[in-house]
């Protein structure tokens, strides 16, 4: 049995809690609850014939990532950076958080999730900067916690990265 801590990182209301709920409970709610402090969920899955238990730390989203405690990230085996496709600013926050995390705990597997694909008509993300990130080796995935699109795949991909980097 392998246990890995996974941190959800992203600006507030990008859909971190929703993504975790979708992945763990296969459920989605339009209700927005501010996550206070940290919420921990767990999901077990099989990766490459081994049992992996993902302990998902859903850190409450804040624009001011300085306030994120180092202990939240410590020991993390992987990170899901989340940005809200309908709010361009959230991508910047995600990039900042990524830097912050790297400074704190070094290189660990991560994915960038562009959430809310169901609202793609309202998207305002700059395609050019995304392409640049992908060129730099970033794994950028599109998800919709609301409709479930790409959610499971994203978590499983991260799981695989953590077990066999």
């Amino acid at each position, binding site marked *: *049995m*392998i*246990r*890995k*801590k996974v941190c959800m990182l992203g600006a507030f209301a990008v859909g971190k809690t929703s993504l975790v709920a979708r992945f763990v409970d296969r459920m989605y709610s339009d209700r927005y609850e501010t996550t206070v*402090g*940290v919420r*921990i*969920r*767990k999901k077990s899955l099989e990766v490459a014939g081994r049992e*992996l*238990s993902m*302990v998902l*730390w859903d850190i409450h989203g804040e624009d001011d990532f300085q306030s994120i*405690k180092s*202990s*939240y990230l*410590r*020991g*993390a*085996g992987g990170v899901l950076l989340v940005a809200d496709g309908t709010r361009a600013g959230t991508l910047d926050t995600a990039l900042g958080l990524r830097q912050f995390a790297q400074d704190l705990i070094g290189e660990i597997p991560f994915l960038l999730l562009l959430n809310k694909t169901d609202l793609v008509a309202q998207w305002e993300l700059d395609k050019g900067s995304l392409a640049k990130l992908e060129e730099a080796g970033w794994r950028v995935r599109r998800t919709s916690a609301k409709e479930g699109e790409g959610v499971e795949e994203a978590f499983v991909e991260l799981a695989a990265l*953590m*077990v066999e980097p």
Partner: protein
Amino acid sequence: MSMEPDSEPGSPELAARELDRLKELLIGPEKAEISELRQVVEGQEIEPRAVGAVLPDAILLRQGEDDRLADALAPTIEAAIQTSVQRDPSTLANAIFPLMGPAIRKSISQSLAAMVEGLNRTVEYSFTPRGLSWRLEALRTGRSFGEIVLLKSLVFRVEEVFLIHREGAILLEHVVAPTVVSRDPEMIASMLGVLHDYIHESFTVGEEQALEHVEFGDLVLEVVRGPKAILVATVRGTAPRSLRERMLETLEEIHAEKSRDLANFEGDTMPFVTTRPLLFDCLEEERRETKPNPMGKLILASACVVAMVLLVIYAFNVVNRRDRWRKAIAALESEPGLVLTTAREEDGGYVFAGLRDPLARDPLDLLQAEAGIDPANVSGEWEPYHALTPEMVLSRIQGLVPAPSTAEVSWADGRLTLSGRARHAWIVALRTVALAVSGELELDESALVDIDLEQAQAAAARLETQALRFPPGEGRLAADDPRLRPLLDAFRDLERAARQAEARVRVDLVAVQTEDGTASVPGLFLPRAEFLRSLLDQVSSGWARLVVSEESRVGDEVALRVRLDPAE
């Protein structure tokens, strides 16, 4: 060689001077070389590599001699440690963690033990807030104070033990007490991690004051920390101090054994499976007993002794009583003429009741003789009845019809057997009574002689020998004929005995041929028979029937033939 004037020959001064002179002569040229060499050596910088080569051996050698080396090195090492701690305390802490714990615990365990003892006493004897609140609770709930203490302080149980890696608060291993239902240990581990960090960061406490003890109602989390992992126990009830010690020991052992796995941990929990036995050892469950006060102990001990003595007495009584009871029942049940219908113990006494044949033994006597039960302790009514058991029948018969000394009544093979000799009247009475008493009874009289019948038979035999010879041609005998008297006596005896024996008697008067063959004169028999009959009639009680047989008309003798028919 000249002598110095102020010196005595053989004095020390003289000897020393002479030795110097001798040295000068012998090694004068080399002496200069030696002092040159010394200058070279002393001015030389010592080569570090050369020292390094000899240093370990040198230290070893020196240590063997005295403590001066240690004394010399101590300040330096102390300074080095201080510097190390200032730079990064965890380096040193990590290194000595497995050793530190036992040493510290040892030194504090004694003072701690004394303190705990004192605390127990306080709780026991004085009005501490806790004791007071327990007393209040006792008053409120109507329970005894002791019961409350028992509930509150005697029991604890470690329900779960978590081994958690400090990096990321990831659960490494987890054990649960048998009946406990564990709820998502991985989550709990992470929560604990969060809680831990939260407290750590919020209150900027040092490593040593970090989260140790969290209470949720009556559930307590005991947390002990190591450099790489923490060990958490969930405890229901009041955990003893020793639990933390046990946990610390366990955590140290795990750090010692798994140092590499802990340091290189990347999520694989497999290597920690082997820590399960250690964790299981932390699943303590205990009834802690508060120290009872010494007087209480004494009272308790004497109460125990008294209780035991009472118990022994009681057990003895019970056994005794049981025994008497068994004996009483057995005696009453086996006694002929008694039918036990009720037997019970009541108010310390006994009640026995049933049916009692008037001829049976008194139950009270029986109980006293057979079971040692005082008649004063016995109550119960005995209804009279007639038992039909052979013994009772026999004794009842014997009571009603006492046997003469010549006869005997016994019970054998299901028959009532009469033997010996007895009067007819007794026999008849016995038969009647026996029948009346038993309803149906087989009588064996084959060995019994009816005395009356016997006498009748004897009389009859006597009578039959008394044939009367009439003088030829005579129809009568003289009234004073001497042969008449015995004949009449025998007849009287016959009648009397036969009457007693209830035997019917028929006496036939017959003519008998005389031995000399003289034929009787025809026609004389009847007058002769009538003559004899009239004589017999005169003495007869009327019991016997006298019959004159017409057909026997030969001979001059008239004889009497007796037929006795014993009663049915």
